[in-house]
């Protein structure tokens, strides 16, 4: 053990032990490429990692506890703070879980708008992933390019709900607003340019020597390991398991749109990178189809269920009974039936699940957030040993973990 006040060199982050030549490196929690507050205790032999201990909890806010002390609608903006890169997908998962619990039927226009939000969020998340991972590995240009495109999407979301990062754009029972006038035209303009942009990124990265060195055959996750660690999303599909919840257990309108699920059996960083790029193209394909669906929908945006959902604003402002009901729902909150539900959705990071145990009260009795990044961080324990220090950054990059979600 090092003594800080002895006359030997004292390094805050490094412990030397001469006997077995092992070096313990403390990576994080404030490391710029730890993608948040990840602390890794790495046991090293020279540059090679022999043991890795991810240490999390630096962003723990106790969201599950908070949920037990909030009415259901109050919790919606809190879900934004989980995966804050694609916050609408968190909103959606929660809204869907409560809707399944109550048994609500959401109007078609709301579904179409939700689909648009979900897929724009997926694009935003993937662009952000590409930008930060490329930056970690040293590709500054890709970072700037991808952030430029992401900025357009954030502007679009801002046009829709006023917020850029924490959207809270989905309500239990529907969506709060219809699309603004220019939304579809702007989205189309963006989508028309997207293939060109993705090609730019790929031209810069696909055959880039540094990129390939950090990506190819690095961080190989076998199929068994991915399944055993509860991996989902791209982490699972890159390891040869064809499982996309949008396809296998379709929710919303995913059974009406055509898209394919890119799969790879390589399991390495490069495979994950290719899947993210392919998924962006698929999202664009879905968005084109959803834009066409929008035209034929009726004007309703929220489900009609007076016991649980407030009436439309116009009714609240003109009809006494709607106003009373709205007042009760806002002050006391809706009381879903007694029962429990687990709903999984495919968020950009993987399987985002909400388990809700309702005892018929205005507050959930227990709410468990199943965030994909939690296990994608856990897998580092088994994945990192054998790799070298420079690979750590690229492996953390391609796991696409977000700490709002890991720590909740």
């Amino acid at each position, binding site marked *: 053990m090092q003594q800080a006040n002895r006359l030997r060199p004292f390094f805050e982050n490094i412990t030397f032990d001469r006997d077995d030549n092992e070096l313990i490196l403390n990576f994080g929690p404030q490391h710029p490429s730890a993608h948040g507050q990840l602390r890794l205790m790495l046991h090293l032999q020279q540059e090679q990692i022999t043991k890795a201990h991810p240490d999390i*909890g630096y962003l*723990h806010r106790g969201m599950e506890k908070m949920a037990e002390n909030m009415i259901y609608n109050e919790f919606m903006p809190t879900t934004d703070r989980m995966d804050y890169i694609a916050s609408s997908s968190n909103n959606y998962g929660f809204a869907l879980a409560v809707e399944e619990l109550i048994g609500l039927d959401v109007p078609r226009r709301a579904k179409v708008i939700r689909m648009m939000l979900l897929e724009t969020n997926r694009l935003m998340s993937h662009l952000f992933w590409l930008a930060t991972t490329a930056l970690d590995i040293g590709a500054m240009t890709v970072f700037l390019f991808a952030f430029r495109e992401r900025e357009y999407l954030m502007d679009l979301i801002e046009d829709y709900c006023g917020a850029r990062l924490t959207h809270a754009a989905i309500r239990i029972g529907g969506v709060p607003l219809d699309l603004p006038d220019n939304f579809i035209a702007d989205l189309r303009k963006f989508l028309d340019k997207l293939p060109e942009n993705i090609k730019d990124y790929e031209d810069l990265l696909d055959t880039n020597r540094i990129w390939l060195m950090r990506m190819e055959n690095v961080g190989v996750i076998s199929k068994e390991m991915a399944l055993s660690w509860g991996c989902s999303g791209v982490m699972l599909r890159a390891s040869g398991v064809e499982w996309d919840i949008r396809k296998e*257990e379709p929710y919303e309108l995913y059974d009406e749109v055509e898209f394919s699920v890119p799969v790879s059996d390589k399991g390495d960083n490069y495979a994950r990178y290719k899947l993210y790029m392919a998924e962006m193209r698929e999202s664009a394909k879905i968005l084109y189809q959803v834009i066409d669906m929008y035209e034929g929908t009726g004007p309703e945006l929220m489900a009609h269920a007076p016991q649980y959902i407030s009436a439309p604003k116009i009714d609240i402002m003109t009809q006494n009974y709607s106003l009373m009901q709205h007042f009760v729902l806002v002050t*006391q*909150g809706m009381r879903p*039936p*007694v029962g429990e539900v687990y709903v999984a959705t495919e968020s950009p990071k993987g399987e985002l699940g909400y*388990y809700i145990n309702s005892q018929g009260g205005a507050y959930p009795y227990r709410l468990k957030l199943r965030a994909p990044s*939690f296990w994608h961080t856990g897998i580092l324990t088994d994945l990192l040993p054998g790799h070298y220090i420079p690979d750590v950054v690229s492996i953390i990059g391609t796991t696409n973990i977000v700490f709002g979600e890991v720590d909740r």
Partner: protein
Amino acid sequence: MRAYTPKDDVQKKPYYTDRYWVAPQVAKSDVSEDAVFAADLEAIKAKFEVLDAYIQVKQMVVVINARDNFGVIELMKNELEYNQLSELSAIDWLASEGKFEIFYQMLSMSKRKRIRVKCKIDEKESIQSLSSLFRSADWSEREMYDMFGVVINNHPFMKRILMPDDWEGFPLRKTYPLQGDEFAQWYEVDKIFGKEAREIIGPENRDPARVDRYDTERFARLGHEVPRGTDISQGEPDTPLVYQEEDGVFLIQKFDAEKSVVISDRDR
């Protein structure tokens, strides 16, 4: 007299509930309605005691004895093709029954089905670890221990995961207050400055919504700015708004609708 507050459940309660309110139930249907689930249940029943089984919101719920948890999940993994353990955690029923309910959320990718296996244990009882079957259980069980204090047998690394290692109390229990207990409010003060600094620093404010309207050091008073540290408990000085046009503060200008530009279309 102070209103009675129960000590065994300090979570927020609705301030008003209609005395005739009867909560409806989420429909439970019989397992025989789904052939896949029925076959799975038969396979489990052949080897283990099943206390209850039903289908709720498209998923089967199987209630078993806590001592069978490893066996049932092993059976489901090896014979029934449930290849992923998506989630596991506990529910605190200590106030009503003195028990924890533990649920395992299983997913079968080949059958596209999800089953929730549940069991109950006493507060002091421990439960078998599943981390040798599914590596994902490793972290989930640590989280369950961290949040509820449910002790796991045969776990490779039984340590807190989200809270600090030296934390006292289990945050997700119903007896644990939302803002934290007394230990929590002194934790950082003790850790950073030492116990002897308690009197100087005082307990940590753990209510993020607390606002002190007389505190001019820590709270901004938009539109009513006063110099930092001013005592305003006895009334406050006027803060006039001054604009650049009137030889006031540089950079603060009056809004002029004529001169402002409205951007109608961003060039995308």
